[in-house]
């Protein structure tokens, strides 16, 4: 009886969460490493600069952390902690560099994009005019027109082809799939070179926006067809069979069951493909030509797009033009972020249903 009464003093061990040791050990190791490095760095090591300091501090931190852990824990736990630190660092470095890339473009582009004229004017202004005149309107229009034409060409073709590969099938479908997969390996610059030779040189026309759209289409088509096929393939076969068993024809099954089921995922895949098309510079570089003037007609005369504008001006030694390049890149980044947000929203729709 008394023995039973004593048991309530036992407390249940918390299996989740972290112990004090788990919390304090990395903190202590980090502080210790910082102290050690501020003492030794510059005096003993053949290093200088802040980057070297951070690297040395990090290495010392990992070593100290391993030593501190080895005090109280067996070898597997020490390995676990060190591995955990290294893996978290990888994710941190990747996330940090992404933030750095995007942040840097906005910081350097800020002097250009704070002036609203960047959205309303083209570069009729000379290269030495201040940032309060001139803008990238021609680039925005060019990007919109080129990607518009490319979407019109690739979306129906790509989705139609994907439907053929998943719903109709057969030997021919396997051949189409092999060729489409092979063409995803085509480097984007070769897409541009292909259109340059097959379209511009063969028909002896000046570089124009339509050629750029064609080059983007050649690049996007295999990407879109392939990702659409992947999305359609994960539609559960049970749904198709249920529909067919209820007496629906194949066309009804595809239209009323397969495509609606896949719609959000399909939208996400398409939007991501379009984002690739918007950002790709190399096919446009060869086919679009460069102009400083607004040109909304894709069939006549050169037509610049945002990435091409950024690329061309970034190669200029003129600091003002470089700032404009960063401005265009920032606008492009906003565009891609918007498109990306659209894809996320489509994906959110998928989760809800």
């Amino acid at each position, binding site marked *: 009886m008394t023995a039973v009464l004593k048991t309530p003093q036992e407390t249940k061990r918390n299996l989740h969460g972290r112990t004090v040791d788990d919390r304090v050990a990395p903190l202590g190791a980090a502080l210790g490493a910082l102290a050690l490095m501020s003492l030794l760095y510059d005096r003993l090591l053949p290093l200088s600069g802040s980057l070297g300091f951070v690297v040395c501090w990090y290495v010392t931190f990992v070593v100290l952390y391993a030593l501190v852990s080895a005090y109280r824990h067996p070898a597997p736990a020490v390995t676990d902690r060190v591995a955990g630190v290294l893996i978290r660092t990888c994710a941190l470095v990747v996330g940090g560099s992404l933030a750095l890339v995007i942040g840097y473009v906005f910081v350097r582009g800020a002097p250009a994009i704070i002036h609203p004229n960047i959205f309303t004017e083209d570069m009729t202004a000379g290269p030495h005019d201040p940032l309060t005149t001139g803008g990238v309107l021609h680039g925005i229009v060019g990007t919109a027109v080129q990607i518009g034409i490319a979407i019109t060409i690739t979306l129906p*073709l790509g989705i139609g082809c994907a439907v053929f590969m998943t719903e109709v099938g057969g030997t021919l479908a396997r051949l189409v799939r092999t060729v489409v997969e092979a063409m995803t390996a085509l480097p984007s610059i070769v897409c541009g*070179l292909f259109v340059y030779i097959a379209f511009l040189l063969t028909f002896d026309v000046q570089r124009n926006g339509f050629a750029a759209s064609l080059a983007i289409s*050649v690049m996007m088509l295999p990407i879109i067809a392939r990702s659409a096929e992947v999305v359609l393939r994960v539609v559960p076969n049970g749904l198709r069979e249920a529909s067919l068993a209820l007496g629906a024809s194949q066309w009804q099954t595809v239209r009323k069951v397969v495509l609606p089921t896949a719609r959000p995922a399909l939208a996400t895949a398409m939007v991501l493909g379009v984002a690739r098309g918007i950002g790709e510079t190399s096919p446009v*570089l060869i086919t679009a030509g460069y102009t400083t003037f607004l040109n909304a007609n894709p069939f006549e005369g050169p037509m610049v797009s945002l990435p091409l504008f950024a690329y061309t001006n970034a190669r200029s030694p003129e600091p003002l033009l470089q700032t404009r390049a960063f401005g265009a890149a920032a606008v492009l980044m906003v565009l891609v972020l918007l498109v990306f947000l659209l894809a996320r929203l489509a994906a959110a729709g998928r989760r809800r249903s």
Partner: protein
Amino acid sequence: MPSGKAHVTTVENDRPRRLRVGRTTGDRVFRGTARGFGVLVLLIMGGIGIFLAVEAAPAFGEFGWGFFTTVEWNPESGALGIAAVLVGTLTVATLAMVVAFPLALGTALYISQYAAPKAKRWLIAMVDLMASVPSVIYGLFGAYLLQPEMVYVSRWLHDMLGFIPVFQVDTDPDAAVFAQSRYTASALIAALVVAMMVLPYACMVMREVFDQAPQGEREAAYALGATRWGMVRAVVLPFGRGGIVGGTMLALGRALGETIAVVLIIAPLFEIKVRILENGTITIPSLIATRYGESVGIQLAALLAAGLVLFVITLVTNSIAAVIVTRGRSGADTEI
């Protein structure tokens, strides 16, 4: 179970009636249209491939095997070869993968095994976003922010490891005023930027495969007393081996074809060299991007031939990647 057996034999005698399914007119139209789309895409894609081969053929005919062994690209003297360009392309892509592989692996492991479930969605979105950032933005970042910083890192590497041929640079690192320009526009800087660009592609594939690691085996490892890393090593990594190799190959394929970021950083130099810290290198995409405008006739065919060689290399890499990803145990049904 004798009665069950008897039952089974009678079922075996029962043969399904042959059903003849006539397709409705709508279905025939649908299948025809879908097939039409498929054939159209096949014709376009196949046509491009054949066109590239046909247009590039004169270059192979003109230069023969010399095309692969000639170092210089000199249209004036008629000496066009891709030896240096090919070496440069492979150097940049390999270096990029050396940097990208551990980072992609670590990030994929973090997202699939370490991150809190709530954060996971955002982290996946982050990797997707990283893949959608336009190449010109990576190029600007590399040329204007990374390059000035990397000059000092390169000099330090040269100073410390200069005895290894790869890290040699044709200048004195200890000079009072060191030759900064010798360390700019190098293969290493280009490779770092390319690594950032291709990393998300490798990471995506790896993360997806790691996520499929069988829950039962993971729990079994924990139940046997494994730490988190012990579980990852014993279950997730062996299971995801196909995805690791496949994702890396896929990223390598993209690294080989990267153009704009490389053009913005490197200084073109037609020379076979493995000194990654030194100014100047050249890759096939940047060769095409910088030389297409001034090329006519046989030079254009040679550029196209270089592009075709690159296409074949990426195609082989991607195909191997696809085979490895699908062949691995990944995706096999091993739920307990």
